[in-house]
């Protein structure tokens, strides 16, 4: 009965197009919304995981977010912290850092899109490295030590893309970037990092960042790496007992903060997605109900001619399947296009889209099954009398 279903779809064009359009819109809505949420969760988890092993000490007023700029910590106090924790940390991987947001994040609960990071020369790895991954430069240098460039900058992978998108200029070693009105020459381009903060970073030597921001003598936080797994607690104890005005933010804290922030957003978005999916199912059920009602007599004639119940159900189900397949595929393409090109960030994920296609088809089939079963139960003589 597939050819009968196809004929029905083709001959009842307007109804078919309206149904397919409805399913397409619903599917697009669901996939785009869940795509954004899925991206949020992925990046948040990657961010938290990549920071594994880092301990960030910052002023209490800066809260528990990482990275946090804006609240200053005197350099002398930062130096004291480094000294007091030296016995429990790896001093070569500990550094004072200055953060400043150059571009706000695209989505809530994410690190800034561009973040100026001032770090002591030779200590860059304390920021760019992690237990999970040490990021190497894709081009140029990964440290300011030994560079002859007067105002050097090392640019994270995503930050380079942002500059390229904004200026239309290809970012290479030697390209001069305008940072807060000052020219900085690109000395290094970092490879992709699992840590979103490193990808978004525009790294300057600490003293030059302090000059640029007018924050001589101040930093935003201190990055510490414990000597081993057992000394985390010692570091925490030192900070808590001697520096009550400072907060300790670990990767666990980052993860917890991000998760609690995203939980409400995720719940809201999931509600909208569920409503959209239910709307698609309701739409199919309504369309099928109307379709089979208006075709009651036609179905009665088919039954009178010898079509079995299952032949009738089969033709209706084939029709719903083909309509929902067309709508879902178009929804997949439309949402893929939106996720890839229409948003500021490329969120296209084929696996995510493919996950929703069978779900949508199954749901619409289930929605169409009830009217199909109902109409198949009607006696031919009743169907023929139907006005």
């Amino acid at each position, binding site marked *: 009965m597939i*050819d009968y279903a196809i004929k029905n779809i083709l*001959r009842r064009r307007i109804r078919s197009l309206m149904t397919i359009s409805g399913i397409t819109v619903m599917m697009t809505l669901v996939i785009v919304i869940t795509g954004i949420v899925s991206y949020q969760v992925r990046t948040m988890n990657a961010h938290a995981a990549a920071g594994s092993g880092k301990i960030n000490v910052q002023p209490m007023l800066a809260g528990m977010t990482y990275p946090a700029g804006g609240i200053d910590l005197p350099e002398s106090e930062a130096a004291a912290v480094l000294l007091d924790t030296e016995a429990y940390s790896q001093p070569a991987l500990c550094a004072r850092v200055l953060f400043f947001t150059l571009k706000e994040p695209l989505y809530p609960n994410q690190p800034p899109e561009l973040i100026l990071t001032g770090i002591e020369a030779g200590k860059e790895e304390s920021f760019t490295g992690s237990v999970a991954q040490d990021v190497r430069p894709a081009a140029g240098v990964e440290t300011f030590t030994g560079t002859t460039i007067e105002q050097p900058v090392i640019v994270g992978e995503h930050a380079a893309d942002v500059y390229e998108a904004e200026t239309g200029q290809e970012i290479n070693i030697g390209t001069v970037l305008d940072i807060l009105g000052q020219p900085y020459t690109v000395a290094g381009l970092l490879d992709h990092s699992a840590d979103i903060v490193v990808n978004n970073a525009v790294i300057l030597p600490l003293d030059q960042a302090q000059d640029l921001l007018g924050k001589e003598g101040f930093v935003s936080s201190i990055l510490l790496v414990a000597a081993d797994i057992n000394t985390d607690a010692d570091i925490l104890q030192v900070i808590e007992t001697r520096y009550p005005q400072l907060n300790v933010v670990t990767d666990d804290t980052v993860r917890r903060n991000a998760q609690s922030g995203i939980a409400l957003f995720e719940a809201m978005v999931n509600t909208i997605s569920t409503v959209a999916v239910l709307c698609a199912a309701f739409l199919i059920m309504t369309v099928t109900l109307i379709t089979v009602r208006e075709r009651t007599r036609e179905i009665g004639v*088919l039954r*009178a001619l*010898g079509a079995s*119940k299952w032949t009738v159900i089969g033709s209706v189900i084939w029709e719903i399947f083909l309509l929902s397949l067309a709508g879902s595929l178009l929804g997949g393409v439309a949402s893929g296009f939106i996720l890839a090109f229409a948003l500021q960030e490329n969120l296209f994920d084929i696996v995510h889209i493919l996950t929703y296609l069978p779900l949508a088809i199954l749901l619409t089939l289930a929605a169409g099954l009830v009217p199909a079963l109902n109409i198949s139960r009607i006696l*031919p*003589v009743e169907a*023929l009398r139907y006005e």
Partner: protein
Amino acid sequence: MKTILKLENVTKKYSLGSTVVHALRGVNIELEKGKYYSIVGPSGSGKSTLLHILGCMDLPSTGEVWINSRPVHCLNETQLTKIRAVELGFIFQSFHLNPILTVLENVSIALQFLGIGKAAAQERAREWLDRVGLDHRLDHYPSELSGGERQRVAIARALVKKPQFVLADEPTGNLDSKTGQEIISLLRKINREAGVTIVQVTHDREIAEMGDEIISFRDGRILQ
């Protein structure tokens, strides 16, 4: 002659709101193979109800229905569907052609319900459409045909599966008298040539007299 259809004390009642309608009140009838029967009677006399029971589209409230010596009053819906598919052909007053199918498809679909492949079904459908004079209309849709042509398609659809008998419910009811006469002549010809038993319900006495035997109905009973 061999009895092909037999009804014994068949009654049929159904509810219309709070009213119980007695459509058939103890009908006894025997129809012979190869004959052309006309059932006549005023509106509401039970003619169509009888036709629906003969056509296995409805079951009697009481009584027995036999087709080819087989009791059908105790069959389930699946078994009745099989009988409709194999042994019966229907012709309706309003033609009831499928608007989304072409003339050829409208006829061949009846064979596809029997599990015959599309190509073979269409080949047989072509033969029958040729016999009813519609070989030039194969790819047209019902909306493009005249009333007489539509009824010819319905006749081809009823006969293409070579049924034992054909039930026609007011087959000329929606046609002008000339076309109506042509349709009955066609049915009569097929009845004689193919030996198919035909049972038609009609209001028209002249049409009824073109058959072999007239069965008169009134108030759910046979008058003769």
